[in-house]
């Protein structure tokens, strides 16, 4: 995930601690959310802005399908 403006992480932390989000998270994952991560991300973002340290990119896990290099060739073909 590319870094976002630091204010976004602050918003995410505040949103995470809200009641509505807590309910949705419980419904989706079966447990209450852990919001500490967003706070840490915010602090890291601030540190990054100050020090310009390289943001750690989390590599994605093994994919089910292979990504395309170009869109499907027949996407725009007219219908017969």
């Amino acid at each position, binding site marked *: *995930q*590319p*870094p*976002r*403006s630091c204010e*976004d992480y602050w918003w995410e932390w505040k949103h995470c601690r809200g009641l509505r989000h807590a309910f*949705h998270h*419980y*419904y*989706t*994952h*079966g*447990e209450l959310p852990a919001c500490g991560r967003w706070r840490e991300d915010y602090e890291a973002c601030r540190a990054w802005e100050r020090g310009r340290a390289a943001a750690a990119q989390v590599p994605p*896990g*093994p*994919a*089910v*399908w*292979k*990504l*395309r290099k*170009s*869109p*499907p060739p*027949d*996407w*725009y*073909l*007219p*219908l017969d």
Partner: protein
Amino acid sequence: DGAEAASPAAEEKAGEEEEDDLGYRLFPDRNKKPQSFLVRSLFTFHNRCQLMLRMTLDTNPYAQLLLEAMKQSGCTVFNDRHFSCENCDGCVSGGFDSATSQIVLCQNNIRQQSHMNRVVTHELIHAFDHCRAHVDWFKNVKHLACSEIRAANLSGDCTLMNEIARFKFGLKGHHQTCVRDRAIRSILAVRKVSKETAEKAVDEVFDACFNDLEPFGRIPHSKTDAKRAYRDFQNRDRYNANL
């Protein structure tokens, strides 16, 4: 509420049996000569479908985000080319036909704007997957399962309200149960595979595909969430352009 099914590609019309295998029986108006303009304009189902579709594409943040994401992936969606309002069998609400790159909307089964919003989002997710990855719609059940999991997860199919309306009651982590069940049902609707095969495929890819939140970046639980995701998506693009 009807079950959504993804109608996969058929390279050639190889006969009734293969068509049945690939789910085309649910969409009897596919591969038929389109009716004349006059006849079509008299049918109010068709008009209503077109109007609701237009409303969704113009105002719904889920759909708008997907349209933007598809445009960026090189598959700009055109209303008159990539959508088709048709009559369908059974209680199917829509499908994605990768043979023609079209999203089929069941004009006889979609009666409310909120339902149209959900069906369009669901099918656009299939179209998005088709656009960005080599999805083998009709030979690889795991690929189909993955797209169905994502579509059920991200389109709002499994909100608490929708589940309650289906008389499916559950709270703790119920969203995942719903996603899993709907994915299995969708596979069984368009494939002649056993329930065990469908369940096995869904379970094998569930973790990877449930956590693949592209292009939303989050599971949108409401239009507000979707608007936020849309804004983040646009900013993401700006960030990458600046690099």
